[in-house]
């Protein structure tokens, strides 16, 4: 895993010291809120409905056992004993006090973590495939590139005041688990004639005007990564609209300018900046890469695992649902669900974090990941240890076998915490999960991604949910719009609205009608919800959702 250089360490400590002084000056009145707000946002500190919220970056979702343990300690010492993992591979604390923030940031720095650039119009936490370095289908580990980008972008003088926030995601696989097409820049590692490079996408984004990223360069040689990304950000810095916050993201720049012209401008700028990159960045990359070297994998026999799987149905169900293929056959990737029905999606208690840290140490080479789907991953577990890992997870209430199923829902904090929310999302997620657990339909329904946002900002990725739910405020009442057919994978698609929204107490029954219709009309159990929607279209689901309208139509005809 990446460990801080002296430079990183000094930089992070320096930032904490600066912020400590800024907090003091805010409290003693020498800074006004208008002066302080941009400073606190630069350090990940928001003010929400009931309290402050601190957002801590988990770069490319990778953390060690010691770091996880420190997150638990912070939750106990300064918060309410839990943390919320988010779709951008961050952890959010919902109850810190302003005066404690500098101490929390110091505690983070003790384990090489920080909250820098988790907010503001900067280049944000670079996210990556949460199976990076472990996935069977991977061309190369995307994290060294993400780390290189992090170092280059952190405090980059030219890019501290971009027109708007800027998000980059990297994946090393053709199958996209990092939603790169919904990012300002998406990078996919590709191989051409034995050479590693990137397919570069630009202009994706969700929020008010969702857009799918477009290819700006089909093959970018590895050594050109930084100058090319710099060229994109610099073209955007110039062209991006600063007159209207809602039109300021690069997706609008690309949309208004056209991808052809953007490509021309980026290539021209690239030609200008390329000579300034003399190869130092490549030396740095070499050093970084060494730090992401795979662990010394233990070659342990798997017969015990096979026997346990055959005899214990609970273990088998968990293995079949929560385990993904590892690059080594004697290892597995374990997804730990933070979505037990009835729980808040993405929340982990400090005790659960401790258990996860201990398991990572004992059985997974000290490494954990946070997925954008708000689950925790143990990326490298010898199959021989799976039984023991499952037993420990079960004891901690973390063995729910629902990865990729109806109750594995992404939900943003919504009106329960967020000051921008127009409706709640957490209770909707909880109720959908409990409802389908009661119906015992989860495994029958099969692969399904439900994603919920509590306002148009789309932090819950609802546009790319197979079923997306958007909470709105309609004349002072919570109202939920449904979209179908969204997809956050390599075939990224923005979902289509079904029609009028549903009241709070109607939304769960509405989802139930959609899924019962799906089970009724699918051609076989192998035809997933998404495939069925693509084949049959919106009409059958509309008929299920709005039966009265259908009757009216039949009448009129």
């Amino acid at each position, binding site marked *: 895993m990446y460990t801080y250089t002296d430079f990183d360490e000094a930089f992070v400590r320096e930032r904490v010291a600066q912020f400590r002084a800024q907090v003091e000056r*805010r409290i003693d009145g020498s800074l006004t809120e208008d002066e302080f707000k941009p400073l606190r946002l630069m350090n990940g500190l928001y003010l929400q*409905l009931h309290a402050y919220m601190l957002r801590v970056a988990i770069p490319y979702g990778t953390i060690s056992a010691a770091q996880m343990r420190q997150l638990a300690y912070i939750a106990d010492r300064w918060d309410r004993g839990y943390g919320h993992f988010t779709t951008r591979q961050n952890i959010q604390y*919902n109850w*810190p006090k302003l005066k404690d923030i500098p101490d929390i940031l110091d505690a983070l720095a003790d384990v090489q973590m920080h909250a820098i650039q988790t907010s503001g119009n900067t280049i944000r936490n670079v996210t990556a495939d949460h199976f990076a370095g472990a996935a069977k289908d991977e061309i190369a580990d995307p994290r060294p590139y993400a780390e290189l980008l992090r170092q280059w972008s952190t405090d980059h003088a030219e890019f501290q005041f971009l027109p708007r926030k800027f998000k980059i995601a990297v994946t090393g696989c053709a199958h996209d688990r990092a939603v790169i097409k919904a990012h300002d820049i998406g990078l996919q590692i590709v191989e051409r004639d034995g050479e590693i490079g990137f397919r570069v996408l630009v202009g994706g984004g969700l929020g008010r005007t969702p857009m799918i990223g477009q290819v700006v360069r089909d093959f970018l040689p590895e050594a050109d990564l930084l100058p090319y990304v710099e060229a994109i950000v610099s073209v955007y810095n110039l062209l991006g609209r600063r007159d209207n916050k809602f039109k300021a993201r690069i997706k609008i720049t690309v949309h208004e300018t056209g991808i052809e012209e953007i490509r021309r401008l980026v290539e021209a700028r690239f030609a200008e900046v390329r000579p300034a990159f003399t190869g130092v960045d490549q030396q740095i990359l070499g050093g970084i890469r060494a730090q992401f070297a795979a662990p010394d994998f233990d070659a342990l026999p798997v017969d015990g695992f096979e026997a346990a799987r055959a005899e214990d149905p609970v273990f088998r169900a968990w293995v079949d649902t929560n385990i993904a293929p590892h690059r080594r056959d004697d290892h597995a990737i374990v997804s730990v669900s933070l979505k037990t029905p009835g729980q808040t999606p993405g929340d982990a208690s400090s005790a659960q974090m401790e258990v996860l840290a201990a398991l990572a140490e004992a059985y997974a080479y000290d490494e954990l990941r946070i997925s954008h789907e708000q689950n925790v991953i143990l990326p490298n577990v010898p199959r021989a240890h799976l039984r023991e890992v499952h037993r420990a997870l079960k004891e901690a209430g973390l063995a729910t076998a629902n990865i990729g199923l109806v109750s594995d829902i992404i939900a943003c904090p919504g*009106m*329960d915490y967020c000051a921008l929310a127009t409706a709640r999302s957490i209770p909707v997620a909880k109720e959908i999960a409990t409802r389908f657990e009661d119906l015992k339909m989860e495994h029958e329904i099969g692969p399904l991604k439900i994603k919920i946002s509590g306002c148009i900002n789309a932090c819950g990725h609802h546009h790319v949910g197979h079923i997306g739910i958007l909470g709105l405020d309609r004349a002072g009442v919570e109202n939920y719009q449904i979209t179908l057919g969204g997809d956050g994978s390599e075939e990224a698609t923005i979902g289509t609205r079904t029609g009028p929204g549903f009241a709070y107490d109607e939304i769960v029954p509405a989802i139930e009608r959609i899924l019962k219709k799906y089970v009724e009309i699918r051609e076989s159990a192998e035809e997933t919800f998404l495939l069925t929607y693509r084949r049959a279209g919106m009409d059958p689901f509309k008929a299920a959702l709005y039966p009265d309208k259908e009757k009216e139509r039949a009448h009129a005809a």
Partner: protein
Amino acid sequence: MPRKFTPKVVTANRLIEGDAVWLTAGDTWSPEMGDAELIEDEAVAQERLIHAQSQPGVVVGAYLADAVAGPDGPEPTHFREAFRTRGPSNYFHGKQESA
């Protein structure tokens, strides 16, 4: 005829704790909305808001929220403001704990 003014309360979050508070008639900040001053006059509401905004060392983000008179003082009319009087619905945290 001028549009009827919806009564207001002045509300904000406390600088250090970050919790929701309401401005009382006695010029203190209360964690209970019921203690708030219910303002029926638009000009007075603006005045009270400016007064609140002149206390940056105490509160952050003061604004006027719609309210109605209830048996125990002002009550929220919108669900967002109702949440601010209670706390989140997923955990028994925030104001509901001490209620």
